[in-house]
């Protein structure tokens, strides 16, 4: 039925619907907590200089991002002290919580003792009713009013007043709404902001309802509150209990695979949580793989692009790429599930080598499926796998590349359901594979956090960047930053000869939802649902799908997806070689080409996943540059 707009009751739309309702978090006390709350980008942070409260602020304010205003809260303080504090702490606003008179405000407004002008917020406490006449005298001497609940204390009483009192608000001055507001009041606030009473409501002020102890704020509840208030659905970027990332993921598998996949699903988290498993995993990563991999500040590259670039050196792992983090994890998993035979698929051969390596390490039978065409173009890796004792089986079906190697591995698993574990090399496949692979690769971002803290004094960079084929190095690089909104996530796909050339692997642009290799994800396909063959100069990125987590990150806008052509990638690989003395894998080179297309701020910290080294691609580089 067509909706007749003429007769829809007119809601009073507050100005807030047009601009965002501001948020003030008051009663900040501890340095670390201030930093982590500031990362949520509230509009105001409040520091209480009134001594008779447990939230009394008596330390230093750390560096906080520009755009967040620092508010000093005072109760009947000497004007001279207030001025002193404003200058000392570089306050942007003062909030007057006592019986300060209009002339007190006018002194603050007109004094020439301040290094910069400040906002003045005058507080009024409301119980059940309020005589709005008192406001008039303050109209010209302050910038905002703040309405709080009248209680025993001057603020921080922890309960709210009846907001409908504000229906009689006679002024046009914007005000802060305060007093006992918590996450439970979200619906009330939403009702309030479409009511007449909120017409001049400018900000929401929160404090005690978000604390674990006085002065210590709970960041995750605050984040949820802010997201809800701004109508941002609180997103979960991890897999849910049904195996989905939003609409993507799941396990679309033939019944023949069900027992194997179900066995894995039921056990993977349990096994990974076993202290014995963790101990062995950590020890192998340290002693065998060589972790932690360095986080290296790339000085010359940073200078060239006028920003701060760090390289996470996964290329320095044993076997030369991030792939081994996952194969170590999965071989330990396979052992605990009592499997004796390992199968894997490989495109460029990196995952095949990483799998053959751990099979040699554990003395297990290893069969690697590889497209016939890839076998021809990646001869050194085929030789490495053979030296390591693996059997390399050519995939002769379809296009005879990675997609078909994966089909063949799945067919092998169907035919060998009892003794075999399939080590999938990317964050793809039926649930729980994408999550399991991501968790094994998450060691990358886990290390970035403490390494960056050591070098930059903060855990969170401004951006994390990784190249994406199926997306395992990207998943590991993003994992611990997925729910940190101040960290930008950049995913770099292979555009091949160009997005519109018909020879591309840019799944986020060219793909749509479909089913490949057991999961629902973004997929390059014909209108009829036949999977198409992607193209990229890099054998590791020419996969027609992308892991379901990345499909979700793309769809929700959490990650920015860029696509880079063959030629830009090759140039970037050469540039990194010459500027930093590091020859990257061609997959990785794609990520480095973004600096030609995207400008970062000079003080941005950009962490690049240097997912693999370029030895395997030497022939490609030689041919391309006619070296």
């Amino acid at each position, binding site marked *: 039925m067509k909706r007749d707009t003429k007769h829809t009751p007119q809601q009073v739309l507050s100005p807030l619907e047009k601009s965002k309702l501001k948020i003030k978090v008051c009663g900040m006390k501890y340095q670390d907590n201030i930093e982590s709350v500031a990362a949520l980008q509230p509009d105001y942070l409040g520091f209480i200089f009134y001594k008779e409260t447990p939230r009394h602020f008596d330390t230093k304010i750390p560096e906080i991002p520009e755009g967040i205003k620092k508010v000093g809260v005072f109760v009947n303080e000497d004007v001279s002290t207030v001025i002193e504090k404003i200058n000392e702490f570089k306050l942007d606003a003062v909030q007057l919580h006592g019986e300060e008179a209009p002339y007190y405000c006018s002194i603050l407004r007109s004094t020439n003792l301040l290094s910069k002008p400040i906002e003045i917020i005058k507080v009024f406490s409301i119980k059940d009713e309020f005589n709005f006449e008192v406001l008039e005298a303050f109209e010209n001497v302050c910038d905002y009013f703040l309405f709080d609940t009248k209680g025993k204390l001057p603020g921080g009483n922890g309960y709210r007043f009846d907001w409908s009192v504000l229906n009689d608000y006679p002024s046009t001055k914007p005000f802060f709404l305060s007093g006992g507001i918590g996450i439970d009041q979200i619906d009330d606030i939403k009702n309030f902001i479409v009511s007449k009473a909120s017409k001049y409501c400018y900000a929401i002020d929160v404090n005690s309802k978000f604390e674990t102890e006085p002065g210590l704020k709970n960041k995750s509840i605050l984040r949820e509150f802010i997201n809800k208030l701004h109508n941002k659905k609180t997103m979960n970027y991890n897999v849910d209990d049904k195996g989905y990332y939003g609409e993507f993921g*799941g*396990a*679309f*598998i*033939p*019944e*023949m695979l*069900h*027992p194997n996949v179900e066995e894995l699903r039921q056990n993977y988290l349990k096994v990974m949580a076993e202290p014995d498993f963790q101990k062995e995993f950590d020890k192998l990563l340290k002693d065998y793989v060589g972790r932690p991999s360095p986080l290296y500040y790339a000085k010359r590259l940073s200078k060239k692009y006028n920003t701060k670039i760090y390289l996470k050196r996964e290329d320095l792992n044993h076997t030369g790429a991030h792939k081994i983090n996952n194969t170590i994890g999965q071989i330990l998993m396979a052992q605990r599930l009592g499997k004796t035979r390992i199968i894997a698929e490989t495109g460029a051969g990196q995952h095949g080598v990483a799998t053959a390596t751990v099979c040699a390490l554990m003395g297990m039978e290893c069969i690697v499926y590889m497209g016939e065409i890839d076998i021809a173009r990646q001869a050194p890796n085929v030789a490495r796998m053979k030296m390591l004792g693996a059997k390399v089986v050519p995939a002769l*079906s*379809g296009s005879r590349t990675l*997609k*078909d190697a994966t*089909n063949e591995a*799945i*067919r092998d698993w*169907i*035919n*060998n*359901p*009892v003794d075999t574990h399939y080590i999938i090399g990317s964050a793809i496949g039926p649930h729980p594979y994408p999550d399991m692979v991501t968790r094994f690769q998450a060691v990358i971002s886990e290390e970035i956090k403490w390494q960056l803290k050591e070098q930059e004094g903060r855990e969170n960079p401004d951006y994390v960047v990784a190249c994406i084929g199926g997306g395992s190095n990207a998943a590991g690089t993003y994992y611990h930053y997925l729910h940190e909104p101040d960290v930008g996530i950049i995913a770099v796909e292979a555009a091949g000869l160009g997005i519109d050339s018909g020879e591309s692997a840019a799944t986020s642009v060219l793909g749509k*939802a*479909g*089913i*490949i*290799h*057991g999961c629902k994800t973004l*997929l390059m*396909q014909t*209108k*009829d*649902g*036949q*999977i*198409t063959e992607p193209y990229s100069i890099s054998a590791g990125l020419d996969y027609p799908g992308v892991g379901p987590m990345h499909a979700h990150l793309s769809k929700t806008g959490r990650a920015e997806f860029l696509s880079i052509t063959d030629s830009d990638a090759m140039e970037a690989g050469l540039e990194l070689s010459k500027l930093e003395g590091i020859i990257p894998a061609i997959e990785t080179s794609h990520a480095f080409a973004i600096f030609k297309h995207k400008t970062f701020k000079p003080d941005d910290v950009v962490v690049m996943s240097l997912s693999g080294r370029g030895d395997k691609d030497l022939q490609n580089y030689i041919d391309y540059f006619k070296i």
Partner: protein
Amino acid sequence: MNRIVSKLNEDKKLLSIYFTAGYPEINDTVSIIQDLEKNGVDMIEIGLPFSDPLADGPTIQDSSTAALKNGMTTEVLFKQLEGIRDTVSIPLIIMGYFNPMFQYGVEAFCKKCQELGVDGLIIPDLPVDVYHNEYQAIFEKYGLINVFLITPQTSDARIRYIDSISNGFIYMVSSASTTGAKSGFGDEQTAYFERIGKMNLNNPQVIGFGISNNETFTQATKYAKGAIIGSAFVKHVTKHGVKTIDSFTKSILN
């Protein structure tokens, strides 16, 4: 009554044949269906080809690739099946992977099947729980029977669950394999067939995978309501063309 159900109610062992639509030639679909009916086959699975048939062995992979190269698509198949009910009454099942159906739109696909007189679907990579939660109502709305697979590794509890969701027959995969991988049954298979027989399921079972001749057909139908032949038939038309379907069916049924 759905044609599959009526057929299952007949007092005889059923022969079901799978073929790949659009293979060997794009326009062979209708004549293959008509010839199969004429030669005493009881049920037909029309294979909708897919680029990545991961439960299939080389024979059906190759026929699928060839069919796609011939220009077979969902639209083309539906076009070919227009009017099929004017000439045949045999139960028709479309067997294909989920992605082409998903792209066509599951509801649109089911609606079209009903219009054309298709009786059921077999979708190996649509798991029973996803079907149950998301699509069962749509299938039922259009009177379609969905057929699920079980294997020797499927647990009894899961078989019971699948039986409770099924409303036609259960496709019993004879061994852990892709299609066309094995021929003949050993003790392991017969033990499995007997085990399932003793479960007294609500839905009759039809055995598939590994049936290629009279011997395996007879063996399988000793334990089940019927048997499905796929790869062996595709091999036959590859070798002998589509004009000699009678010789194939005779070799099975005699």
